[in-house]
């Protein structure tokens, strides 16, 4: 799941950057860490101040338009660290929404083994069961006492590593034998459920605590709500039910407490029509700063149980089209 030497699987380095490079209008500067976005007197971003990770030299890069895509925690951090006389609480933050509404997925993983396959000869079944998917199915459940749904990704790990070994007790000959015995029979149900977007769950920056480059670090304030816990609980009950019917034995629970966010954190630079309650408009353009765009999951207002990447890609494509149209009309 983590990339492909042949370039057959979609990744940004394999798929998108070569396309960008072929336009001839693309320069990649790696090893630069953005400290802050600097504004001019009209309140537009004029430059990004970056630190070269190797030389520790700071440098300003100017541009006409800035698209921030640092992922949810870091995009909010960059805006909150970009304070000026015009934007004393952080860039594009007149709504006070920057950093707020942090959410993602609450997850629960259950690992078990299929009785009939335990102790059988290993076969090449990579790809056969890797990433089967159970979409949301609780829509018609009248007794549902929470908002939202969940999905399961089944067996989202290969058979190359025996993940059950991390959860088995003991050591020695019998331990090693049991790891081997269960390996062909492994089944892993990974659940992903909706988390509510709430303003009190947020990213702030702490000016007194700095990272190795002297940039104030982000601080994450987060608590699961009652709804988040209820959906998480029901997701586990449903997973157990499915596994029981599939004759999956010896279940063990990889998350005895709700865990987040499956690297799916979103929401800290939300979009909306009202500049008083949102940071970005429907084209991911900052209400306060016309030449600033944020094109990652932080623009999400709410987030269902589904994975975010395709939506992020679609919104980024839409934003790119909007930018090129606006530039043609000289409106930004």
């Amino acid at each position: 799941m983590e990339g492909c030497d042949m370039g057959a699987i979609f990744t940004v380095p394999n798929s998108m950057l070569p396309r960008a490079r072929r336009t001839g209008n693309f320069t990649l500067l790696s090893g630069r860490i953005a400290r802050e976005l600097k504004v001019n007197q009209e309140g537009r971003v004029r430059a990004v101040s970056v630190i070269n990770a190797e030389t520790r030299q700071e440098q300003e890069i100017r541009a006409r338009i800035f698209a921030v895509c640092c992922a949810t925690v870091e995009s909010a951090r960059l805006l909150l660290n970009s304070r000026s006389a015009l934007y004393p609480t952080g860039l594009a933050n007149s709504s006070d929404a920057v950093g707020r509404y942090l959410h993602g997925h609450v997850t629960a993983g259950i690992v078990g083994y299929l009785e009939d396959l335990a102790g059988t000869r290993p076969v090449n079944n990579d790809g056969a069961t890797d990433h089967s998917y159970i979409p949301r199915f609780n829509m018609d459940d009248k007794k549902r006492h929470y908002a939202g749904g969940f999905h399961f990704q089944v067996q989202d790990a290969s058979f190359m590593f025996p993940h059950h070994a991390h959860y088995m007790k003991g050591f020695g000959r019998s331990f090693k034998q049991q790891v081997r015995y269960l390996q062909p029979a492994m089944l892993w149900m990974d659940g992903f459920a909706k988390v509510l977007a709430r303003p009190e769950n947020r990213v702030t920056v702490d000016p007194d605590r700095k990272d190795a480059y002297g940039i104030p670090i982000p601080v994450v304030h987060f608590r699961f709500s009652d709804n988040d816990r209820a959906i998480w609980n029901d997701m586990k009950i449903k997973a157990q039910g499915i596994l029981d019917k599939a004759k999956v034995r010896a279940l063990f629970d990889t998350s005895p407490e709700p865990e987040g966010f499956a690297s799916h954190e979103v929401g800290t630079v939300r979009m909306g029509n009202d500049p008083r309650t949102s940071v970005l408009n429907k084209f991911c353009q900052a209400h306060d700063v016309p030449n600033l765009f944020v094109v990652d999951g932080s623009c999400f207002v709410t987030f269902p149980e589904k994975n975010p990447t395709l939506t992020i890609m679609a919104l980024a494509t839409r934003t790119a089209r909007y930018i090129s149209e606006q530039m043609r009309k000289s409106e930004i």
Partner: protein
Amino acid sequence: MKLDEPNRRTTLKALAGSASFILIRPSFLHAAGASAPKFFSAQEMNLLSALTEAILPADEHSPGALAAGVPAYIDTIVSESGEDLKQSWSQGLEAIEALSKAACGAPFAGCTPVQQIEILEKIAANEDRPVTRAEQFFLELKRATIDGYYTSAIGIHQDLEYQGNQMVHDFKGCQHEEHSRAE
């Protein structure tokens, strides 16, 4: 080859309990040969060799942690880690040596195999709720041994006989007679 079937009771016992889930990506940091250790002393490497081999020993099916280069793997990981982790490993190994000297009057590597297993059984007794330093360290040691062994060529190919990641020239479909359709 026929695999011995462990009885159901011991299997369930081994599976009981849970831990929080952190996916460790397979690493391929298995140093080859007996090059000089990067972090541990020669004495600590001896101890680490005895400990990892006791956790995942050679058996009739496959070689164990020592042959798979697990001590060198752990040495590489710890040498590249922060001070907290380095200290935790040094102190953990010390705690086990202290236990060994108290139990059998010798360092762990000098105890008999039976004594070694007794010592490990003692510190593995509270895997759910480790209290003492040695009990906490056992979990760290066991996890690192598992990661090192099952990401090695021996662990992947000889022990688990992993069949994946191969070019599939033609797809034969299901080979079960009862599932084959008459042409």
